[in-house]
């Protein structure tokens, strides 16, 4: 529960003729985490080379590339697969050989035809655009070009022109602009140009077409329609293929991906001319299954050897081994760092403590209920493992928030019909507010207690970790240093208890003084502190500068109260503004205008609480996470473990 899944280092050695069955069996079992072979790494591997891919690798990669191209064109995603049955591996393989190429050919032909038609449509549309200006000119376009004695100007002008030279002009006006076709003899050309320039003339080239523009536009529009019809037909056929073969494509993708991964596996092996060796990790619980599988698949022609932990330099990969309640919290652990194989895995602790802290900060039945509904509702829409885990963490946190809401007697900043069972967090906000006010001292002391206990727990875990991981004289020193930190912490507490009476804390002020006005409590505290410091210094003298962190880390837990109170304050202010200041005065003598004000007040209420929910979720989540990461983990947790990624894949579309 507090340790990762146990792993055993396994070495497989065999002749190259057994390579393929071994790879196939390893892939099928999805248990073996391959440790990649690096050349010139170790002495015992002298003369070994990295292996070469299996012969089928090239051809399979090519097939996979082609298939992925088609999958991309169809935009097929894995999550849109119908939940149909799985295909048999052998049958699928046969289909890939026999049917896939012809389907792929058909799809590729259709796709290239579609691309061609698309570019054709674009071409026609360009031509139509070029013809449009001339659409109301009732002259054959051929008559507008190729003159030797005349100059033809076609284009837009922004104001009327008047020419006192011989000319012919056609003007077509629309709402937006004015298009002209002007013909003058060549000798008057410069006069015409001048006049046109004054009218801000923008020339338009005459399209290389015969016939009137209107008739040509009609012709091209007809063409576009025809091409679009054909395009629709092609799209319909592509859709049909997609619908019919979608699962087949996905299954083929899976099969080919698996084949490529298997074919390329020897790149991670150590090989000689005739043999190969591969090392890796297998979960100890499943070791026997793995060994039998390999034995069965190769007829016992393979040497499978368990290496002792002491023979291995690398650290085993880490696979979480948690009860199902703690599993979603693994995501929060991965954000920080995966635990090392030899380390205590604190996932279960975090899965309990994180929601409690979240609840203490955002202890409100209303907000908790909103977040609960949100986390349950989003579960259907959010795909992916990480997202699901996050929602489950949020769900647990919001349930805790509701529970603490009941204890704090809070509902959107209002109080529930009972007195706070734990401590009051109600502030005196609003015109007719009164009463006791928040019980800040008690809340603070609660936070301090939580801090002291969690930090002590962290140090205890630190002792366990050092006892497990370290060797020799450093081991005992490191363990003692952690004990030293605990002693200093509790020593300071004992001295405080002896000096000041505090609520919810042992009162040692009443003890009789022994020497120099110090009583037993103070002396005990002093001894603890001194001894603790000695233990710490014996491990590392530099750690002395870290001593003030004892105080700052414990006080850091005050954020549980501080952030929580600020959330309550915002909620109460929203209530006061929306109800006390906007809605209530209107309700006393309701007018038509007053109804609008009341609606606005309701709006302020909703938006304010929405904002506070988001703030509360971020504040409650991040602050309590930070307490785990900074205050708790720094006491014992290193992280940096390798992820356990067994060779193989989860098959979704095929079965053996």
């Amino acid at each position, binding site marked *: 529960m507090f340790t990762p899944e146990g792993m055993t280092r396994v070495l497989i050695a065999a002749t190259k003729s057994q390579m393929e069955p071994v790879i196939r069996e390893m892939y099928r079992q999805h248990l073996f985490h391959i440790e990649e072979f690096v050349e010139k790494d170790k002495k015992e591997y002298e003369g070994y080379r990295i292996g070469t891919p299996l012969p089928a690798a090239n051809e399979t990669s090519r097939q996979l590339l082609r298939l992925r191209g088609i999958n991309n064109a169809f935009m097929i995603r894995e999550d849109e697969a119908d939940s149909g049955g799985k295909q048999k591996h052998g049958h699928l393989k046969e289909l890939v050989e026999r049917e896939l190429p012809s389907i792929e050919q058909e799809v590729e032909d259709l796709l290239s035809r579609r691309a061609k038609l698309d570019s054709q449509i674009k071409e026609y549309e360009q031509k139509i655009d070029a013809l449009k200006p001339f659409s109301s000119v009732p002259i054959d376009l051929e008559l507008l070009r190729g003159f030797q004695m005349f100059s033809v100007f076609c284009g837009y002008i922004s104001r009327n022109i008047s020419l006192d030279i011989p000319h012919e002009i056609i003007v077509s006006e629309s709402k937006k602009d004015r298009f002209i076709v002007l013909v003058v003899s060549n000798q008057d050309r410069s006069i015409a140009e001048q006049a046109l320039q004054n009218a801000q003339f923008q020339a338009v080239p005459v399209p290389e077409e015969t016939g009137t523009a209107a008739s040509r536009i009609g012709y091209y529009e007809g063409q576009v329609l025809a091409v679009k019809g054909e395009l629709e037909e092609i799209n319909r056929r592509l859709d049909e293929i997609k619908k019919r073969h979608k699962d087949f494509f996905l299954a083929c993708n899976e099969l080919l991906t698996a084949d490529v991964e298997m074919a390329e596996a020897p790149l991670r092996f150590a090989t000689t001319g005739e043999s190969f060796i591969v090392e890796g990790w297998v979960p100890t619980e499943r070791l026997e299954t793995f060994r039998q599988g390999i034995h069965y698949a190769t007829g016992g022609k393979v040497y499978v050897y368990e290496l002792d932990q002491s023979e291995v330099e690398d650290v085993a990969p880490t696979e979480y081994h948690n009860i199902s309640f703690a599993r979603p919290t693994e995501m929060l652990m991965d954000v*920080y760092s995966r635990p090392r194989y030899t380390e205590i895995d604190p996932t279960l602790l975090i899965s309990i403590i994180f929601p409690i802290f979240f609840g203490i900060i955002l202890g409100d039945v209303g907000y908790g209920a909103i977040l609960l509904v949100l986390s349950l509702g989003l579960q259907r829409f959010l795909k992916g493992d990480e997202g699901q885990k996050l929602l489950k963490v949020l769900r647990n946190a919001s349930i805790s928030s509701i529970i603490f809401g009941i204890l704090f007697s809070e509902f959107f900043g209002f109080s529930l019909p009972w007195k706070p069972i734990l401590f009051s967090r109600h502030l005196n906000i609003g015109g007719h507010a009164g009463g006791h006010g928040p019980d800040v001292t008690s809340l*603070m002391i609660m936070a301090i207690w939580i801090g002291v206990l969690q930090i002590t727990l962290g140090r205890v875990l630190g002792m366990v970790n050092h006892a497990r991981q370290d060797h020799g004289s450093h081991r005992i020193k490191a363990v003692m240093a952690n004990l030293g930190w605990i002693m200093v912490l509790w020593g300071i507490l004992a001295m405080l208890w002896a000096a000041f009476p505090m609520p919810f804390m042992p009162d040692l002020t009443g003890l009789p003084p022994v020497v120099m006005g110090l009583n037993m409590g103070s002396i005990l505290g002093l001894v603890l502190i001194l001894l603790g410091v000695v233990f710490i210094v014996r491990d590392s003298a530099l750690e002395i500068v870290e001593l003030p962190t004892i105080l*700052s880390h414990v*006080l*850091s837990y005050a*954020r549980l109260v501080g952030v929580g109170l600020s959330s309550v304050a915002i909620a109460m202010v929203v209530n006061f503004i929306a109800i006390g200041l906007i809605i209530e005065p209107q309700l006393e003598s309701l007018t038509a205008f007053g109804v609008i004000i009341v609606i606005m007040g309701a709006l302020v209420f909703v938006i304010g609480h929405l904002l506070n929910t988001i703030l509360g979720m971020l504040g409650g989540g991040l602050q309590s996470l*930070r307490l785990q*990461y900074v205050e708790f983990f720094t006491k014992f947790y290193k992280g940096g473990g390798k992820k356990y990624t067994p060779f193989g894949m989860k098959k979704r579309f095929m079965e053996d």
Partner: protein
Amino acid sequence: MADAATAVAATEMTVEMIKASQLGMKALGAGLAVGLTGIATGIAEMAIGSAAVGATAENKDVFGLVLLLTVIPETIVIFGLVVSLLLLF
């Protein structure tokens, strides 16, 4: 002359007024405690935060570590908060 003026003022102040004035001073102090420490934390986190985002962009694995480093100066504002809460209540 000045002494006389303060003497007159002092005689005119009632206990309620002094209490109210003290309450105001407390609130002012609490506000200053949170506000100034907040600014200090902001300044401290500014540099760390931008470096942290840069580091995360280069290598996603350091996210946990840099989040930790970024929030370390928050302790300052928490101390301010503690002081102000103790002042107010």
